[in-house]
C-alpha cells in the first residue's frame, strides 16, 4: 500500500509537468500582458517603459526559456514569477485558495449527504412517487445554469432580508462577499462570520453537484440491490433497514469515491461562477482578472495549483477505493 502510494505520487509528477507546460502554452497563446496593459494608455508610453516592462515580465526571453525559468524558479526558490499587477502570486493564490476551498468542501459535504439520502430513498422505493419526484428535481437542477440557481437564491435572500428588516431591524442572511468588511476579531465571531457568508454560495454549488451524484447513487444502489448477495441477505430474514445499510449501501458507495474525485475540477469551475454572483474574492476573481489582463504567471500558477489538487484528489480516491473494497489490492 505504501509502495503503491509512493509510486502514484511519483507518477503524478510527469502529469503535472505536462499539464503545466500545456497551461504555459495556453497562457502565451491567450495574449501579451504588456500590450494589454498599455493598449488604452494615451499618450502611448515610451519605448523604454515598454521594454522595461517586457523585461520585468520576462517576455524578452525565448519562448521555451520562459517556461524553464518559471519552472526552475518555482522548484528551486519558490518564485511564482512576476505579475503585471504587482501581485505576490504565491500568497495571492494561497489567500484565494483558502476562501474557495471553504466553499468547495462545504458544498461537497452537503451534496454528498443530500445525494446519499435521496439516492437511498429513490432506490428503496423504485418507481414510486417519491422516486419520480426526486428524479425530476435532480433533472431540473442538472438543467439549471449555476449562475441562475445562485442568482435566484440571492434574490430570495434579499427579499427575505427586506421583510425581516422591516419587522426586526436586522438582515440575517449574508448575500455579498466571503466575510464582513470588518470581520470580528475573536475566533468564534470570525468562524460564525465565515459560516453565515458561506450559506448561500454553498447551497447553490451543492445543488448542482447533488443533481449528478444522486442519479449515480440511485443507479449504483439499484444494481447492488438486484445482486445475489443482497437476495441472500433478504432470504436470511434480515430487516430491510439492515440489508440496505449494512449490506447494499457499503458496496454501492464505493464507486462514489471515484465520482467525487472526478468532480473536483468541475467544482472549481462552478465555484468561479458562484463566487462571481456572490462577489467573493477567491480563486474565481483571481483567475477572471488574470485572464482579462493576460497575466501569464498568475494563470499558470492558478492552473498548477488546481491541477495539483485534482491529481491529489484522484490519488486519494484510488487509495480510499482500496481501503473500502476488499476485492481490490494494490501490491
Amino acid at each position, binding site marked *: 500500500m505504501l509502495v503503491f502510494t509512493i509510486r502514484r505520487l511519483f507518477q503524478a509528477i510527469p502529469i503535472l509537468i505536462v499539464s503545466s507546460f500545456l497551461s504555459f502554452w495556453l497562457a502565451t497563446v491567450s495574449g501579451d500582458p504588456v500590450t494589454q496593459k498599455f493598449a488604452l494608455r494615451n499618450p502611448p508610453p515610451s519605448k523604454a517603459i515598454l521594454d522595461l516592462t517586457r523585461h520585468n515580465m520576462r517576455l524578452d526571453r525565448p519562448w521555451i526559456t520562459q517556461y524553464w525559468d518559471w519552472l526552475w524558479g518555482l522548484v528551486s526558490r519558490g518564485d511564482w514569477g512576476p505579475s503585471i499587477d504587482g501581485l505576490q502570486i504565491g500568497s495571492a493564490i494561497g489567500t484565494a485558495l483558502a476562501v474557495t476551498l471553504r466553499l468547495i468542501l462545504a458544498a461537497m459535504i452537503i451534496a454528498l449527504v443530500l445525494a446519499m439520502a435521496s439516492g437511498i430513498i429513490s432506490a428503496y422505493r423504485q418507481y414510486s412517487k417519491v422516486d419520480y419526484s426526486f428524479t425530476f428535481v435532480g433533472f431540473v437542477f442538472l*438543467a439549471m445554469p*449555476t449562475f441562475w440557481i445562485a442568482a435566484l437564491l440571492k434574490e430570495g435572500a434579499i427579499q427575505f432580508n427586506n421583510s425581516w428588516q422591516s419587522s426586526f431591524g436586522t438582515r440575517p442572511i449574508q448575500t455579498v462577499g466571503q466575510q464582513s468588511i470588518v470581520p470580528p476579531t475573536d475566533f468564534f465571531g470570525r468562524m460564525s462570520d465565515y459560516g453565515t457568508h458561506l450559506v448561500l454560495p454553498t447551497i447553490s454549488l451543492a445543488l448542482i453537484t447533488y443533481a449528478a451524484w444522486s442519479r449515480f447513487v440511485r443507479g449504483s444502489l439499484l444494481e447492488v440491490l438486484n445482486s445475489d448477495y443482497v437476495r441472500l441477505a433478504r432470504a436470511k430474514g434480515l430487516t430491510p433497514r439492515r440489508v440496505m445499510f449494512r449490506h447494499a449501501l457499503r458496496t454501492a458507495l464505493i464507486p462514489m469515491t471515484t465520482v467525487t474525485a472526478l468532480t473536483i475540477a468541475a467544482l472549481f*469551475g462552478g465555484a468561479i461562477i458562484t463566487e462571481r454572483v456572490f462577489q467573493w474574492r477567491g480563486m474565481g476573481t483571481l*483567475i477572471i482578472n488574470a485572464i*482579462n489582463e493576460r497575466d501569464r504567471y498568475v494563470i499558470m500558477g492558478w492552473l498548477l495549483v488546481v491541477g495539483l489538487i485534482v491529481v491529489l484528489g484522484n490519488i486519494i480516491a484510488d487509495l480510499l477505493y482500496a481501503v473500502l473494497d476488499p476485492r481490490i489490492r494494490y501490491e
Partner: protein
Amino acid sequence: MSETTSRPSAEESEGAGGPSAVGLAPPPPEKVEREFTVKERSQASMVLTRFLRHRLAIGSLIFFILLVLVVYLSPVIFHLNYSTITDQASLSPSFKYPMGTDELGHNYVALVLRGAHQSMNIAFIVAIMSSAFGAPYGAIAAYYGGKIDAIMMRIVDVILTLPFLVVTGALAEHYSGTWYTVAILLGVTGWVINARVTRGVVLSVRNQEFVEAARALGASDTRIIFRHLIPNVTGTLIVQATLDIATAILAEAGLSFIGLGIHAPDTSLGVLAQQSQNAIETRPWLFYFPCVMIVVICLSINFIGDGLRDALDPRQTRQRR
C-alpha cells in the same frame, strides 16, 4: 419448372422443404416458415419499441424538435427580427410582447430566440466534434491496450487536470469571442469525456467472439475498430451526445456569464443573461427568460437522453413498466 410455381398456396400450407418431385433440387426458399411463426425483431426495432414506451422521453423529443424548428425558423414564420426596435422600451411581458422589451425597445422574444439559435449551434458543433474525435480516440486506446492505451489515457488525464472553464475562457477571450470560436474551443476541451466513455464500452466488448471472428477472417485493425467496435458503442455515443449538448449549452452560458465567452455584438443565451444580470430587481424578465430557455432546452435534451439510455439497455427488456 419448380414446384412452388405449380402450387400457389405452398407458402401457407406446407412451406419449403417438401420432397421434390423432379430430380433437380428446388431453388432455396425465399422465406423460412415455421410452424410457430416468430416475428423476427432486430435490435433497432426493440430499442425503438422501448423508447416509444417512455412517454416522457417521447414528449421531450417532440417538444425539442418543435423548439428547434421555432428557434431556427422564427424569422421566417413569425417575422421576428432581432434588430427591429419598437418605440416601447422596458415593457414588462404582455400579450403583444410575451417576453417584454429590453431597455432599447427590442422585442425580447426575438432576442431570446436568436440567443437560443446561437446556443444550439454551439451545442450541436460541440456534440459533433466531441463524438467525432473522442469516440475513435477511446476506441483505439481500448482496442490496442497496453502501452498505447496507457499513453493515450495519460494525455486525457492531463487535459482533465485543467478546468475547461479557464482553458476555454483564456483562449476565447483572446480570439475575440465569436460564437464559433467558443464552439470549437468547447469541442476541443470536451472530447475527453467521450473518449473515456467510449473506451469503457469498447473494453467490455473487444474480447467477445464476434471481434475474434472478424480477426480470424483477416479483418484489419481499422476495419475491426470502425466496422465492428464503433457500431457497438453507437447507442452509448448517442446518449453521450445528448449529454454533450446539454453540457455545452450550460458551459457556454456559464462562460459568457463570467464575461469570458461570447462578446457582444455576437449573442447567445449566456450573453443575454450576463447583460441583464444587473436588471434582476428592476426588469427581472430580461434575466429570467434566457435562463428559463436554457433550462427548457437542457431539460428536454436530458429526458431524451434518459429515455434512450433505458431503451438501449438490454437488461431493461422486462423490468421496465
